[in-house]
């Protein structure tokens, strides 16, 4: 067990290193000369030697690996540079916008969690029933629907035709219900499909037959054993999707005019505000990696055998 954790941690460090390198490369890929961009920002029309001066000062003449080391050093100190758009430090902006998006994602995850487990299990247990067919149809609809369009539909139905919610509303949980639903529905739909298939394959396993032969009630078999065995693949996905939703929030925030990290990033992209983009990318990737650790830990508790299996994968 301990060895397994250590192995996962080493693996994690390698991945984190790769993530920072890739982030760094993504931020360096731009044909725009950062020294010139910076110079243009502080001076109206900078002279070429002034630009060179700035290049030296920013360390942009150094070899790429040196620049990476400097950059990672700054990142570790929490300095992600300052935004070209808002002029604020990037990490300040992110700290401002992230909580709203986190709240949105958390509510969306809540919807997903309370929907896919019961629906997936009931759908699998009553395979080919009316309920199952209905769920199948709805799930396919759910993964095929463009989320921005769903957002407009919701606005049209629940804010215009039947004004249950306000069109523009800030700062309370109620205002997040529609956006979080829009964010949750596609993911929940794909989870229902996957979970149903996993439950079905578990229902056909020998241990279910033997549990019945021992006289265990079917409710206990399904909601105890089968559920526990079907969760691991979806736990991994669940935390993976947490990361995607942070990114995918851009679309929803745009439809519902919410001020979150997604929209912030989008504005930065339109304005080509590189420091902000890179900051956001790094933060989201790191959150994503942290989530995958959490998924690992939960899976380890759910199924101790995974520690054995995974071993083969990386060994």
């Amino acid at each position, binding site marked *: 067990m301990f060895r397994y954790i250590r192995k996962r941690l080493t693996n994690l460090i390698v*991945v984190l290193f790769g993530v920072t390198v890739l982030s760094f490369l993504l931020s360096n*890929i731009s044909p725009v000369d950062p020294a010139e961009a910076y110079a243009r920002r502080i001076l109206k029309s900078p002279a070429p030697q002034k630009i060179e001066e700035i290049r030296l000062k920013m360390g942009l003449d150094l070899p790429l690996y040196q620049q990476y080391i400097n950059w990672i050093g700054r990142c570790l100190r929490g300095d992600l540079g300052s935004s070209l758009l808002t002029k604020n430090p990037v990490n300040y902006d992110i700290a401002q916008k992230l909580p709203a998006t986190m709240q949105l994602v958390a509510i969306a995850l809540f919807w997903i969690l309370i929907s896919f487990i019961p629906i997936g299990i009931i759908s699998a247990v009553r395979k080919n029933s009316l309920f199952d067919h209905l769920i199948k149809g709805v799930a396919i609809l759910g993964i095929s629907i463009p989320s921005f369009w769903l957002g407009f539909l919701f606005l049209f139905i629940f804010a*215009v035709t039947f004004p249950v919610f306000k069109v523009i509303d800030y700062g309370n949980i109620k205002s997040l219900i529609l956006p979080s639903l829009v964010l949750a529905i596609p993911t929940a739909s794909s989870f229902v499909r996957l979970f149903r298939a996993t439950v079905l394959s578990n229902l056909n396993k020998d241990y279910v037959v033997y549990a019945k032969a021992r006289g265990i009630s079917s409710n206990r078999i399904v909601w105890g054993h089968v559920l526990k065995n079907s969760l691991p693949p979806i736990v991994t996905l669940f935390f993976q999707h947490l990361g995607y939703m942070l990114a995918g929030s851009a679309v929803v925030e745009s439809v519902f005019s919410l001020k979150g990290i997604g929209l912030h990033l989008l504005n930065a992209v339109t304005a080509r505000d*590189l420091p902000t*983009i890179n900051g956001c990318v790094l933060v989201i990737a790191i959150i*994503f990696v942290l989530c995958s650790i959490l998924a690992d830990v939960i899976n380890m508790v759910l199924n101790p055998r995974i520690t054995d299996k995974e071993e083969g994968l990386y060994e």
Partner: protein
Amino acid sequence: MNKALLKNKQILIGLALILFVSTIAVFAPLIAPNDPNKIDALNKFLSAKGEYPLGTDQLGRCVFSRLIFGARYSLGIAVPTLLALGTMGLAFGTAAAYIGGRLERVFLIVCDIFMAFPPLIIVLSLVGALGQGLEIILAAVIFSMWVWYAKVIRTYAGIERAKDYILASKIAGCSGLRIVSRHIIPNILPQCIVIVSTGIAALILMVSSFSFLGLGFEAGTPEWGAMLNQARSSFYSHPRLVIYPGLCILLTSAGFNLFGEALRDVISPEEASE
């Protein structure tokens, strides 16, 4: 299995939808009653009648014709991109699974690194760095998504590789290349068709959401997501301008999803065992 495919209603519905949209995309100029880009300031927001089967938009352009031309953009981008992704995935995935050992481990770590970036994020940061443009978006999509396909295909190929018939082929004297090309790839092809089909649906949604966010297409392009974006401001007065393009996206991606998911049901062992 071929009979099972033709009996499955869901597959037929999916195929019919795919064929329908493809036909429209191919014959768009013949079907569309009007020039999709002709601006007519006098005929803004017309409701449906005669010359304009679905009315006109905020610039007086024929909505119906624009929707028909939109099919070209959605399919024309998603299908080739996915074929490229599928080919890359097949090449890297089967190679990693067949060779195994240290190479496979390195491959898995590279996958983990790439997968730590949600595709949308890579696309956004590349667009931010390199500027707008369809080719940049497509390059970014391929750059961000190839690991997903490669990793899934590696898993399938790994399962296949462990089977007895691969060992038997080895004993029969097959070379590594022959085992991969004659045995592993044909046997994982159905699963690959599934992921390519559902992948096309996902990509259609993704590209349309980019253009909805104003990335990728020039203003005025009759792409469904872009049309939706342009109609936003008049959403409350003319909701149909938002509804129609969304419906088109939904139908197209549903076609690919229906086909892919039904195919998955047909080939997955859990469903077959009963």
